[in-house]
């Protein structure tokens, strides 16, 4: 390619600044949405990996329990394996910092005599300066803990300072013994990690005789996988031996659905961006047809013309990518906190504290930006390249062909829709991704139907005056430009409406569900509940005080833990026990999807059986009467499934059993949470105040029914917060598309506008006509998008949700949200029309040339 030719071609884009800016911006936003989501996805996994590396160092294997912990007496068995050169136990606990709302610390108790090195740097208050390790202090100073310098600074702590943390309902005083920069060893490790002696940790946090894991180093030259198998055999089914890769895989699996959904959403922006590129390149090429005609007449081949067009589009694509990368990264940073909160509150994973843009992601961004731009430019470029020089050099504009092609395109759309449905019904349904396939093809079919719909609806509107109807009719006369803007907007609106319907329906379903299940008046948990999710226990005397407290009629005691099924599926096991009034109540108030309530209640109390949540039933293919096998410290326990209940607390699945059944599997244990029901006539607020006084000095959290419901809904809203930025990005791209289309239309029909001026239309009239065209594009995109959105909502709720999460979501119409979105979309379309309408209104009557009109 001659560089001069490319420079000349790019000069056009420099002159058409608005067109260029909108095109680059469209690519940038598409790239940004992908970069944003992938950065967050990678950040989530990197945070887990970073935390693992910081805690376990270069351990080759990790031994974990089924349930919250392991018996420390397994340690000799681990060490006895001939290929294990070293092993060290770890105790882990989450503590909430007293005096800091929502500030947590993850405390890791380590065996200081274990052959593992931590990058310890002692503080300077009361300790010698320099890089030396004072094990003696670590052992004999009560509550000695090493903090990261970053977190110590954030909390305003220095070496030698003391601070208090709450673990379950215990208040523990710790002393900053050293500042340890874990991030030097593991750059992605959390700054909230803290290190202390294991025996102190066991003593202070109530883990006597228990550890969370053993990290293992194997003999050099021996495959860790082989050692893992041997160790597993020696330790029996009560423990699981995992390689670091397996642990990361487990975390990735846990987040798979969350990540896939966000990725799919971000790709919608790319699709909308491709439409925008198509419009821009098409408009640019039509405007420059004589330039290409001249090149062809001077001897340039079709391939050279095609190459030139694609090359200049590639330059725009790269410019958009360069802009989109920092934009996406900034969007990821803005959303880091909310995604992080979702990871910790729902998936029990580490917080994302820092993010990076790895080279692979930069490469993905380039592929998306460049690929999207070239894909968008390909059809118009091929169209220009294959035309004869005579046609290109001719005075008349290129004929509007889309109007003629509209029925054929619609027919292709019908064919595609039919083929996809045949595939789906004929076996495609079996694939988990089939819902995404349907959603994708919905987004393909909508644009294919758009030209015909426009032609046959607005194209038949009698104008009747110089107003919006004439504007709409004009839109139908330039399908080559307008149908892409309408299609892009329709795809975006479909996504907006589909997701709004999903979220609204889900929210309404959840609201109904918590109304049925959260019926107690006061909920009591340990202070660190939000992080350890009840895997730590309240002291027995705290529980007794609560159960016997004046005004309390009944108490539901809950114990919960996380384990796996024999197929490796992570599940939450929850056991209830009712104390207090003799009124007949369900062990769990879970509304049933399958099974008889009376039978479920009776059998749960009398036998080792389970009520399982809907997601678990769907994902594991279990039904009433089947057997669920849960792993525990004593091996696998079979539990007959007596019922399936609606539950929205965990997408991985929840197993409800009696407390006796849980203790039979995991041994005796304490109570993680207590739900209190007031005696008739007692004011829950007054009882809660009295409880606060009685529980002074214990780290417990008291929540009213109303507050707990609000917290549940807050977590729900937080989970979907990141989708809003994706929706906004797609909407901005689509609105750019409206602006671009109207600018293109203004240029293409300068003659028509000049004619209006000749017959006496004022600039104000032309401006209003332009605005009404913008509104028209908005209304058309909205109407088509509403239809697409309704179908997409059904796919999301009935297929994708069921396949990936397994919940039953009842349709609800979030009217207010939809109305507001409609207002935003129409407002955006009209706002996008202001500048093009202003430009159109300045068209002089002298622009009347022979082109374009009859």
């Amino acid at each position: 390619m001659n560089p001069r030719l490319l420079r000349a071609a790019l000069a056009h884009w420099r002159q058409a600044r608005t067109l260029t800016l909108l095109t680059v911006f469209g690519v940038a936003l598409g790239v940004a949405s992908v970069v944003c989501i992938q950065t967050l996805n990678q950040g989530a996994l990197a945070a887990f990996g970073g935390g693992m590396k910081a805690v376990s160092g270069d351990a080759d294997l990790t031994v974990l329990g089924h349930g919250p912990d392991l018996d420390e007496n397994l340690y000799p068995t681990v060490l006895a394996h001939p290929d294990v050169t070293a092993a060290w136990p770890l105790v882990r606990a989450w503590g909430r910092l007293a005096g800091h709302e929502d500030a947590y610390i993850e405390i890791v108790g380590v065996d200081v005599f274990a052959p593992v090195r931590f990058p310890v740097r002692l503080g300077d208050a009361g300790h010698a300066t320099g890089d030396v390790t004072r094990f003696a202090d670590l052992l004999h100073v009560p509550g000695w803990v090493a903090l990261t310098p970053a977190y110590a600074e954030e909390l305003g702590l220095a070496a030698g300072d003391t601070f208090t943390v709450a673990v379950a309902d215990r208040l523990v005083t710790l002393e900053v013994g050293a500042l340890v920069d874990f991030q030097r060893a593991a750059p992605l490790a959390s700054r909230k990690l803290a290190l202390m002696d294991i025996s102190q940790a066991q003593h202070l946090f109530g883990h006597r005789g228990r550890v969370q894991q053993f990290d293992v180093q194997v003999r050099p030259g021996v495959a860790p996988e082989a050692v893992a198998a041997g160790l597993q055999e020696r330790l029996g089914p009560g423990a699981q031996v995992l390689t670091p890769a397996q642990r990361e895989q487990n975390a990735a699996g846990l987040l798979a659905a969350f990540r896939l959904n966000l990725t799919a959403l971000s790709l919608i922006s790319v699709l909308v961006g491709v439409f925008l590129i198509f419009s821009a390149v098409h408009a640019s090429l039509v405007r420059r047809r004589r330039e290409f005609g001249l090149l062809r007449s001077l001897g340039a081949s079709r391939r050279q013309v095609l190459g030139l067009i694609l090359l200049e589009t590639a330059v725009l694509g790269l410019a958009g990518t360069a802009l989109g990368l920092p934009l996406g990264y900034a969007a990821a940073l803005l959303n880091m906190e909310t995604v992080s909160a979702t990871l910790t509150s729902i998936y029990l994973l580490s917080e994302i504290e820092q993010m990076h843009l790895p080279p692979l992601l930069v490469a993905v961004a380039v592929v998306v930006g460049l690929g999207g731009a070239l894909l968008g430019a390909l059809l118009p470029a091929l169209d220009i390249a294959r035309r004869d020089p005579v046609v290109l050099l001719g005075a008349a504009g290129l004929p509007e062909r889309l109007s003629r092609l509209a029925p054929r395109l619609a027919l292709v759309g019908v064919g595609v829709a039919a083929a996809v449905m045949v595939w789906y019904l004929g076996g495609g349904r079996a694939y988990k991704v089939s819902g995404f396939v349907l959603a994708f093809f919905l987004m393909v079919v909508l644009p294919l139907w758009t030209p015909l719909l426009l032609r046959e609806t607005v194209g038949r509107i009698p104008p009747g005056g110089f107003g919006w109807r004439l504007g709409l009719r004009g839109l139908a006369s330039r399908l080559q430009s307008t149908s892409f803007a309408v299609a892009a907007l329709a795809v975006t609106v479909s996504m907006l409406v589909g997701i709004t319907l999903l979220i609204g329906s889900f929210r309404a379903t959840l609201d109904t569900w918590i109304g049925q299940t959260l019926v107690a008046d006061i909920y009591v948990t340990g202070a660190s509940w939000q992080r350890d999710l009840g895997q730590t226990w309240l002291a027995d005397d705290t529980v007794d005080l609560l159960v016997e407290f004046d005004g309390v009629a009944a108490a539901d005691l809950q114990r919960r833990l996380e384990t796996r099924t024999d197929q490796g599926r992570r599940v939450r096991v929850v056991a209830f026990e009712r104390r207090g009034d003799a009124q007949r109540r369900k062990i769990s108030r879970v509304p049933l999807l399958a099974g008889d309530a009376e039978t479920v209640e009776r059998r749960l109390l009398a036998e080792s059986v389970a009520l399982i949540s809907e997601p678990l039933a769907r994902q594991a293919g279990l039904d009433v009467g089947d057997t669920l096998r849960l792993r525990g410290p004593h091996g696998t326990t079979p539990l007959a499934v007596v019922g399936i209940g609606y539950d929205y607390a965990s997408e991985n699945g929840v197993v409800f059993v009696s407390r006796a059944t849980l203790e039979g599997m995991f041994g005796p244990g304490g109570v993680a949470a207590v739900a209190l029901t007031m005696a008739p006539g007692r004011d829950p607020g007054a009882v809660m105040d009295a409880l606060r006084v009685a529980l002074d000095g214990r780290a417990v959290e008291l929540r009213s029914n109303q507050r707990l419901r609000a917290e549940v809904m807050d977590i729900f809203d937080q989970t979907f917060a990141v989708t809003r930025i994706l929706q906004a990005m797609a909407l901005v791209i689509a609105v750019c598309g409206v602006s671009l289309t109207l600018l293109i239309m203004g240029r293409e029909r300068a003659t028509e506008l000049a004619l209006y001026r000749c017959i006496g239309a004022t600039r104000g009239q032309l401006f209003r006509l332009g605005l009404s065209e913008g509104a028209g594009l908005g209304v058309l995109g909205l109407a088509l998008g509403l239809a697409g959105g309704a179908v997409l909502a059904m796919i999301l709720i009935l297929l994708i949700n069921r396949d990936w999460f397994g919940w039953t979501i009842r349709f609800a119409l979030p009217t207010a949200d939809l109305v507001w979105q409609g207002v935003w979309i129409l407002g955006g379309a009209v706002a996008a029309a202001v500048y093009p309408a202003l430009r159109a209104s300045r068209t002089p009557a002298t622009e009347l040339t022979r082109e374009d009109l009859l």
Partner: protein
Amino acid sequence: MTGPILQFEAVDRAFPLAGDRRRHVLRGVDFSLDRGTSLAMVGRSGSGKSTLLHLAAGIDQPTAGTVLLDGVRLNDLPDTERSLLRRDRVGLVFQFFHLLPHLSMLENVCLPGWVAGDSATATRARARELLDRVDLADRADDLAGKLSGGEMQRVALCRALLRRPPLLLADEPTGNLDEKAGRQVMDLLLRLSSDEGAGLLYVTHSREQAALADRVLRLRDGRLESAQS
């Protein structure tokens, strides 16, 4: 209203070129046109005929001199007022018809009425009446793209006359038609403008068509060189 519908008094029009240079397209043009009369403007390409029509329609403004449309001085009038004056008092016919292809014949004729905000019913009735007078009433609902050149110009003529403008300006109205169609259109133009009592100013290359007007003026290098009654 009495007096000429259009008056040019010592009108100059020059366009700036690079540097301080200017290109004079019209120099000291003086003439007037009465209602119900016709005036043909002849001249070679580039002689300033189209510029003269633009000035007469208020699309362009003179560099010097005065243009009076129905007694209203167009010089220095704001754009909006010139647009409204054009809307109410001028009908324009172009060489290339300029019909909107996505509208029917009837809708094309109705356009000036829509722009003016006239009653839709009255506008349609008037448009049908005009199409009937040019023998196109039975095809009123056909899209404009289906017509022959002569038919398109007849529709354009109806559009220009829709609001009964006292001044009709035509820029080579037969320049894009064959001889027979051109003659038909010229006859219609003269007859209809006369019937409506409008003053007609048309630009043409054809001596034969110029001879059909009440008066003929010749433009050469921007000056009115000769005039005959």
